[in-house]
């Protein structure tokens, strides 16, 4: 038998593989932003001079360049995961809870037993799940904007 080798560049062979690897890579930039924000909070906590030093550092071309790349990855991260969530957790609406009759054996005799299960209904379309996530993102962003800018 011939074992087919997996090329080191397998992730360049298909667009979907490439997007997947970029999505996985995006977590590094999510971590970067988390650290960036934490350092900012610490700087604020240490007083105005410290905050100014942080802002000067954040305005340096290298940090700005990193943040632009990080933002692009963050957008990719958000968009891809919003799409995936719809597929990972199907949400069902409508239908009804019914008592499903099941059999159980009690002391050697078969007796009916009841369990409540949800049946029927229809699955919420993926587009609607994705749209509601964006709506949630807008609400949270608006709240934070209000908090910062007021």
């Amino acid at each position: 038998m011939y074992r087919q080798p997996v090329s080191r560049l397998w992730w360049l062979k298909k667009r979907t593989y490439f997007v997947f690897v970029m999505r996985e890579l995006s977590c590094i930039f999510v971590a970067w932003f988390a650290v960036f924000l934490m350092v900012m909070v610490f700087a604020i906590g240490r007083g105005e001079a410290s905050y100014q030093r942080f802002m000067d550092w954040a305005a340096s071309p290298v940090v700005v360049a990193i943040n632009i790349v990080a933002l692009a990855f963050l957008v990719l991260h958000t968009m891809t995961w919003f799409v995936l969530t719809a597929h990972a957790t199907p949400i069902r609406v409508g239908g009804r809870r019914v008592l499903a009759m099941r059999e159980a054996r009690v002391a050697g005799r078969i007796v009916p037993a009841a369990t409540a299960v949800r049946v029927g209904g229809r699955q919420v379309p993926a587009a609607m799940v994705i749209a509601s996530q964006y709506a949630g993102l807008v609400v949270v962003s608006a709240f934070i904007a209000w908090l910062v800018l007021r």
Partner: protein
Amino acid sequence: MADSIRMQVTRYTPGPDSVPTVAEYDVPLRKDWAVLDGLNYIKDHVDSSLSYRWSCRMGICGSCGMNVEGEPKLTCATFLTDYAPGPVRVEPLSNFPIVRDLVVDIEDFMEKLPRVKPWIIRDDDVTVIDGEYLQTPEELAEYKQFSNCINCMLCYAACPIYGLEPDFIGPAAIALAERYDLDSRDRGQRERLDVLIEKEGVWGCTFVGECTTVCPKHVDPAGAIQRYKLKAAKENLMTFLLPRAAR
């Protein structure tokens, strides 16, 4: 429309060949011909030594899966005209060892599948004489999608994780576990979770999603795996938080 199309077919004979080679054949291009018809033409009229698997020609036996232009496809349901003017590349499914030409060895899957216990498990011992297990059409609808799996292995060929981590139990096996978990007659969730909660179970999956894209029967293995991850995560959390008796 041209009256013929060139097929580039992987050839490999263990022994004489150390690596697979590509052979080119011109086959008639007919509107109603699938890639499989092209292969059958080669076998009948050009080279009878060409080896490949096929049976039903109607997308239900799951044996004619191959990579067509790099995409895992059922060759009986993939039309030559879609690749005109050609050439069209036909290779064995990726991630499996090649036995000969386009035939791959799926022994690894055959060993993994029974591990997830894809059958109805009962905690009682009701016999046939006691009667059948009843199920409503709504209860059937709960798992029907996952029962459409034909074990064609396209999802394993499409999964880069399976290629890189051969211990990963894989998309179809997990989708079939979900099929039985969702069956109202089944009581085996616990037993299946014990197998799939492991690292080479659902956690091997990083949600590339290609298994669902290539599935010819719309089973959605990727969705099944993510749902299993929720179950596994919940179980891990319960184990962590609750004393044994309360679980």
